[in-house]
């Protein structure tokens, strides 16, 4: 499996994402946003965390207009798996590959800590190695992760089962206290209709090894690698 980690000026999670893919035996390359046309040589496209263009207008807004995003859209339209983490999720929303928007955390502060999310679906290419309803401990680190969409969109997301990760407490319940940013319905990650574009605020790539505090993120990358190896 060969993944492209697309980086923009101000991305800073590119390195971690590349390491995570390599840790589970995949191959990953960092692709600078000015390098057009190369994504078709990859099996998956990953958009890393960070502060593209400083997040100075809205998180992910300027990056979403970078020409390479046309390639990312084409890759996604062709059914290729696209994963956006944190700033990557924000960029996918701004690029309309995913519905809704990520606005400022309700408490108006950056939140950096471990949270828990529940796996709402283990039948996506990104989650097959998780158990359904498994509760994961994974770090978050963001100031704008408060997921918002209009009512109709939210209903559609829930109705179609497109919420993939939800913030929960230790017992696996989506409570107000376990919601770190005010996101609607405790949404931490969603997938597109076709099931190949996933956006999530938590950082699985930072939960790969016990020495870092958790290994719960690893299965996301093993899922991706094994599903791509199978389909190849």
């Amino acid at each position, binding site marked *: 499996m060969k993944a492209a980690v697309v980086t923009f*000026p*101000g991305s*800073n*999670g590119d*390195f*971690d994402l590349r*390491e*995570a893919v390599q840790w589970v035996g995949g191959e990953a390359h960092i692709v*600078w946003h000015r390098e057009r046309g190369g994504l078709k040589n990859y099996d998956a496209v990953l958009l890393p*965390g*960070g*502060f593209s*263009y*400083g*997040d*100075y207008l809205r998180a992910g807004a300027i990056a979403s207009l970078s020409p390479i995003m046309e390639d990312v859209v084409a890759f996604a339209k062709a059914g290729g798996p696209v994963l956006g983490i944190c700033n990557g999720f924000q960029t996918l929303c701004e690029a309309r590959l995913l519905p809704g928007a990520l606005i400022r955390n309700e*408490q108006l*502060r*950056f*939140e*950096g*800590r*471990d949270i828990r999310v529940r796996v709402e679906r283990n039948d996506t290419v990104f989650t097959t190695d998780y158990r359904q309803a498994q509760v994961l401990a994974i*770090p978050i*680190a963001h*100031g704008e992760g408060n997921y918002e969409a209009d009512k109709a969109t939210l209903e559609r997301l829930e109705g179609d089962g497109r919420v993939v990760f939800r913030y929960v407490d230790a017992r696996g319940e989506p409570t107000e206290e376990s919601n770190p940013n005010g996101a609607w319905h405790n949404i931490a990650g969603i997938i597109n209709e076709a099931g190949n574009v996933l956006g999530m605020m938590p*950082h699985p*790539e*930072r939960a*790969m*090894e016990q*020495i*870092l*505090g958790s290994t719960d993120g690893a299965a996301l990358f093993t899922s991706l690698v094994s599903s791509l190896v199978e389909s190849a």
Partner: protein
Amino acid sequence: MTPELVADHGLSPDEYERVRRILERDPTLTELGVFSAMWSEHCGYKNSRRLLRLLPTEAPWVIQGPGENAGVIDVGDGWALAFKIESHNHPSAVEPYQGAATGVGGILRDIFTMGARPVAVLDSLRFGDLDDARVRYLFGGVVSGVGDYGNCVGIPNIGGEVVFDRGYEGNPIVNAMCLGLLRKEELITASATGVGNALMTVGARTGRDGIHGATFASEELSEGSDESSRPQVQVGDPFTEKLLLEASLELIKSGAITGIQDMGAAGITSSASEMAGRAGNGVELEMTSVPTRERGMTPYEILLSESQERMLVVAEKGREGEVKAILAKWELEAVEIGHVTDDGRFRVVENGVLVADIPVLPLTQGCPTYEREGVESEDIVRLRHTDLSEHLIPEGDLTKTFLLLLGSPNIASKRWVYRQYDTTIRTATAVRPGGDAGVIRIRGTTRAVAATTDCNGRFVYLEPRRGAMIAVAEAARNLACVGALPTAITNNLNFGNPLKPHIYYQLREAVLGMAAACEAFETPVTGGNVSLYNETDGRAIYPTPVIGMVGVIEDVSTITRHAFTASGDDIILLGTNTEELGGSEYLYVTADLVAGAPPAVDLDAERSLQGAVLAMTRARVLHSAHDCSDGGLVCTLAECALGDGESPLGVRVKLDDDVRPVGVLFGEAQGRIVVSCDPAHSEEVLRIAALHEVPAQKIGKVTAAAEGFSIALRAASVSASVAAMCDAYFGALPRLMDTPAREI
């Protein structure tokens, strides 16, 4: 040149005479500005240089000692660690958010200009008491400034301190420390070698911000300074910094440049003249070539601007295009503004017309240095000799006092602070903030580096020499607790006005104490920063020599954390309990008192203690280790029990010392560490302690949280529920800070 103008530039009549002798004529206004900045306390260390010479700076593992942008030590396996601490106290007092943010930006640049990739930030902060609305505003602003900047650049925060005490009212302390890793052969220095090589500015454009910042940083704040210092606020741009960081590391790797320096205090002036000075060369700069943000800037303004996110590089002749191409990839500018000369002069021209012409060495090294008179203040002598015996007799319920202390902002969890920081980016943080020291693993090796910042300003205030020794000892103890061998320090001397004899006394004594402790622990000083004139309306802050210490862990599997891990474990206390209450948080909280002598510190005993704990971590017999500091033994045990709040445990301890309860519980005796271990390993722990001649006693057991927290002493006891402790400890800062009213 009027005497007023000279005085406005912070130069004394004698110093002005010296300028005239150096130039053999009157300076122009531009030249006066240049001297003023370079001979400010900030750049010239007028009042501290002679004292700094007293510090030990050498050891076989020191690759770069003081004098460069940052110190560098060898950490094994071909890796080197660059690290340094820097203050931004005055800017933060005026504009907390930007002041703190630009402080972080500056220290990051000091690290990556050594060729090192920044891997961790720490922040050491001090404010007045939190019941004051202005203090809450400063604290909130500083924390978000530190956070937003580091988060955006993508450097994890791994520790720091926050202290609240009236002693810092009006004059907060904001010190930021950065660690960077590099391969030993990648080290680059800031020197302008190669006559004819081009000088290029890279990064952001030059604006009018921060002009006179260097002089400003060396003057006391007074009532009016809010108004007058407005134009001096610098705005940080962490996005540009991130690009500059990547571009600089790429530039250094390319070999197209021979030297690089951050434009920090005194901007182009200091970077160009210092780089020339180090190489024994001169420079010539053309002002009209400098890319500016605003039209019509004068040479004076351009030379002294402290606009952020700029660097000066020396490009190998003929490779300027390569430099530009690398910067362009990162969407930044690189512009030639001059070249290296062989005549040892700092020459500035505007459209070819000479506007400044100064010999480099007298400018960079000829700043007069002073040895001032130092006399201890009688008031402090009296304070130190305050009789504290009445405070050893408990007033009221000890459990209540314990909970009060646990919820005091100084002891309470700083989670509210470090949750605003990204602590996990770069996937190398093995110990996050909240423990004794932060730890960053070195990928591809079994090694890690650890870092901590420490200083108890009350102790230094009450007895500067001993207080400074304690600061170094505590830092080393903190490192030993995570399993790191203390290796070297950087330090930030935050003091009042050194022209006052009792302040100079504090400064000299503190440096002597630091020197003695660093000798004892073999932790040389590789750099630091001096921030003087920290006074508001004539009242100085507590003398606060913040110690930033780094250590090395050879095997990451021996890393130890501060929280208890399993019910049923034995709790063992290393070190000896005493009745010392001087300068304690207990006195501050219960009696509103900062008095008495700081606790005794025995450097040999400290060294043995650290050796013992390191041996224990290496033998992998410990489940936890935590140093005893603010709040005494009882607060230390509470911190061990509560951890980060995710899975707190209980404690059952029985103490048998022949010491009065208040002393044992709340006294801040030095040289103590609380460890826990599987009962099967207790013997081994006690044996290792004995081997190192460290007193050790089994004092109790870790229990389930439901069993609560209880400490029995001979004649007294403390007992609290874990829930009540969590509420006090984790709830304190949110309760104080999350009230909506935030007045400016």
